[in-house]
């Protein structure tokens, strides 16, 4: 196993851990953090792609690096928006949870 494969596996592992957290953790803040883990995993994977796709004699393909930077900005904005919503929710309702009993309908009258 060479370094590039190990690097790629690390990225995949991060994605896996993040997905587990995103699905299983009920707290919104942990879901947000898990999303960031998945994002980091994807960006690492993109790094591997850049390394493997590099032309002869080059350290890496520069395009994925540019894309990763954009991706990080997008993920950062997403996190900021999610945290802002979470804070407002905490302010307005006193608790920060997603799992209210889905009260789309009151009990049948």
């Amino acid at each position, binding site marked *: 196993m060479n370094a590039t494969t190990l690097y790629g596996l690390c990225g995949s592992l991060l*994605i896996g851990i993040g*997905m587990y957290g*995103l*699905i*299983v953790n*009920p707290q*919104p803040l942990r*879901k*947000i953090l898990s*999303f960031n883990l*998945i*994002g980091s995993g*994807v960006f690492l*994977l*993109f790094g*591997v*792609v850049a390394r*493997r*796709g590099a032309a002869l004699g080059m350290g890496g*393909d520069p*395009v*994925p690096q540019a*894309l990763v930077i*954009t*991706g990080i900005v*997008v993920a950062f*904005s*997403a996190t900021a*928006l*999610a945290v802002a*919503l*979470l804070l*407002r*929710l905490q302010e*307005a*309702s006193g608790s920060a*949870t*997603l*799992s*209210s009993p*889905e*009260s*789309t*309908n*009151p009990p*049948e009258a």
Partner: protein
Amino acid sequence: MSVLPTLVPEATTAGGFLLVLMLVLPLAGVFAALTLGGRNARRVAMLAIPAGFALAVVIGVELVQSGRTLVYLLGGWAPPLGIALRADGLSVVMLLTTTVVLLAVALFAREGFQTPENVREARTPFMFWTLLLSVWAALNAVFLAGDLFTLYVALELLTFAGVPLVSLEGKPETLQAALRYLLFALFGSVLYMLGAVLLYGAYGTLDIALLAERVRPEAVSFVAAALMTTGLLAKTALFPFHLWLPPAHAGAPAAASAVLSALVVKGSWFLVVRLWFDVMPGVVTLTAAQLLGALGTAAIVVGSVVALRQERLKLLVAYSTMAQIGYLFLMFPLAFDPAGSGPVHGAALTGGLLQVVSHATAKAGMFMAAGLIYAALGHDRIADLAGVARAMPVTVLAFALAGLALMGVVPSGAYLAKKLMLDAADGSGQWWWMIVLQGGAVFTAGYVVLVLVSVLRSSAEPAPLVKRVSRLSEIAALALSTSSLLLALAALGPVPGELVANPLAPKELGTLLAVVLGGALLALGLSRRSLFGVRAATEANGGSLRRSAVAVGKAFELADRLIRRWQVASISLLVMVALVGGILVSSFPR
């Protein structure tokens, strides 16, 4: 014209700069609204949106005249190094629909979202107009972007602009709905991004036209197709990934719901179409398309039945959106060429596009009408809507016309779409989709009949109106519904005239009657409260029949609640990736 050109090297075409203007205009509007602030936000939107409509028309004329895709290369750099903006027939139709719906929404919201006289700036109206422009900018980027990464960014912008629209009023339940929406959408976009990364790794480009040439049916493209399709479905809220849609769309103010339901979910749908038809038509298979169609069918049935079980009008309309999203995916299995080797641009795709346009206009009109009823009564309990038709006839007419348009009554866009897709189903021997296409209208009729019966019911005293609604808002809703109902006539240009039947022909009237009757039966059986008051229902139908129908309705409600749990929805997301991937791999080598 509708197929992306594969000419290499690509160059900016005449009129390509119009595409840049189309992106710059709404963004300039956003910045102007932010910096000018206060009540100027509305003025900016009121100027920018009509200008955008004119611009979209110019782009359309340019496209038809030149007869080929408009291209603009940013900075003159050609892909794969540069970024291209492209507008084909699909993009232009979506651009036009977007501006038309936004125009109506802006007129509708003109009075409801004005800054009060005595303050310089009020948060809600200021944010509404700024976000409206942001949604528009993001949508234009989705329709014009020529590579998968720009599309990713555009899609994220669309989510970021759409989510705050949900929680505009800042109530705890809408904040919760917005957060759920955001988190699930992020899950979807991360899957999409992963797929895009894999494609770049395998083919060294993300440009749509270049990828279409390079992509081959092999393991990596199968996985990428599965990841990207599933991620986009999560954002489109196709069943069973609709956990976020009903609370978000029902909780938002009516003008915002109209935008979210009519336009925002269409953004990610459009991307699925791009992916399947333009990026990897040689990779996806008919079996995978059948899966999409099957999920669409499930969405129609579950969404419509649960809509019938709703107590509140806005939730009913939100569930109807979920059902209508299902329709948009029936097009995929029908669009495959006769050999079944890949989806092609043809009658089925035209039908799907028409369906999007007619749904966008009708559903926006319907949400607006529901919002007006809510505003006028101070509530939207379906059981207490008696007398509304007399009090606000224009609004009820708008709702009824939107309902007819969604059912696919003769001159409506949905009718023509259904006709095109029925022909495609007939031509490819996929009779089961003909049943779904014909039967779907009955389900739609169900909830439309339910609402109309409720509002037409006369009450002893006139409906107590707490507020007078603006006449302009009512007319905006009515205009959208009417345009959806008359869409087939407008589409007569490119479509052969014999496709539109005489609406008064016995055959068409008979179909309409059957659909409405079927819908009335569904509403009679499944509605939460019996349609004509308790006694009439028991006499007409027999108590046991109604009881068993109600039990079925309750079972659907329960199933819906289960599927909308976070864990269930997100695990089914992963299962979907595995399913689509598995289907694609199993057809290899073909």
